[in-house]
């Protein structure tokens, strides 16, 4: 292919992407990460001092960089225009909806737009980074250093698969990925969908 033809071909890329590139993306600010790290450290220190975390039977390993957002209350969260991706006419389209930035609301909107029933559930959403935890030798102080790679893990009930017969699987899952990774201001380096 001639390079001129390739340049022209790029001109036909999806209009939504072209629109999105009109403005620079909002980068996760370093000070926000530091703020998150500081908050995590403070929480962990408090927990450790109180001696709760170490004795909790079901306590998970300290992954303070991971946030289970599925339990957030929509009333506590700022609403904004969120792009919801859906399939229409054999292609992925998207539309803005003014929603609280809570995964369960966004997922519900995605389901509605794609004709997915209520039996399909969002089981959890977790952001994981490559940061690390450090606890002082006497366990009195803990600190978390936030990493620079972010992976979004989305858990959805397995019955989503029952829709593959009428909706192309690849496009459906792509629309979910675009929706779930798009509303946050974090530029994710990875995405992981688990059906269970």
């Amino acid at each position, binding site marked *: *292919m*001639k*390079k*001129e*033809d*390739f*340049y*022209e*071909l*790029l*001109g*036909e*890329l*999806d*209009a*939504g*992407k*072209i*629109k*999105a*590139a*009109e403005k*620079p*993306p909002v*980068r996760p600010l370093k000070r926000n990460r530091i703020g998150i790290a500081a908050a995590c450290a403070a929480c962990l220190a408090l927990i450790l001092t109180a001696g709760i975390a170490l004795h909790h039977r079901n306590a998970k390993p300290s992954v303070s960089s991971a946030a289970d957002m599925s339990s957030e209350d929509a009333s506590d969260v700022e609403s904004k225009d969120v792009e919801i991706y859906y399939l229409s006419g054999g292609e992925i*389209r998207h539309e803005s909806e003014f929603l609280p930035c809570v995964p369960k609301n966004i997922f519900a909107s995605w389901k509605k737009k794609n004709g997915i029933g209520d039996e399909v559930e969002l089981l959890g959403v977790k952001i994981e980074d490559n940061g690390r935890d450090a606890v002082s030798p006497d366990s009195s102080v803990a600190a978390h250093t936030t990493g620079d790679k972010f992976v979004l893990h989305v858990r959805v009930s397995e019955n989503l698969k029952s829709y593959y017969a009428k909706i192309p699987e690849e496009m459906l899952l*792509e629309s979910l*990925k*675009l929706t779930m990774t798009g509303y946050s201001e974090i*530029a*994710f*380096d990875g995405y992981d969908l688990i059906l269970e």
Partner: protein
Amino acid sequence: MNDQEMIRLFWERNENAISEASAKYGHYCSGIAMNILNNREDAEECVNEAYLQAWNSIPPQKPKILSAFLGRIVRNLSFNRYKQRHSAKRGGHEIPLILDELAEIIPDRNSVEDEVFRRELKQCVDRFLDALPEEKRYLFLRRYWYSDSVTSIAEKLGRSADSVSVELHRIRKRLRDDLAERGYI
């Protein structure tokens, strides 16, 4: 005026549609044309021609995203103008560099590709961009869709031109590898 109202003016064949589009998107369209042509007179002509093309195509078309719709027309017209001028060795300071960079992704050779191949290749590039982190996708589109200079992209992102160049090189390599893996090159 919002885009939906503007599109309604086009549909009603109201000539204010063009002046409204020009007021809102004139700067945007001129920027694209200037990036490609580096010549104000040519750029203005292409932008004016783009409004006329938009007038002739809306209706029947009803663009979902007016800016991208107008931008695409301007990009096509400007690149056609660039090709005419290029044979006479004029204009387009940035485009030769961009085309050479694109040749790193797809080997620059005379070959006949059918419409199906083009469509599949476009979809493949679309999917590749979907999978990129937002900032990398922004870099790629500003460089190869909007034809921005590396310096201009660096300024927009508050980064150094060198780091933008390196990042673009990596993205091109990833795209080339991706296309090779899928058998497009």
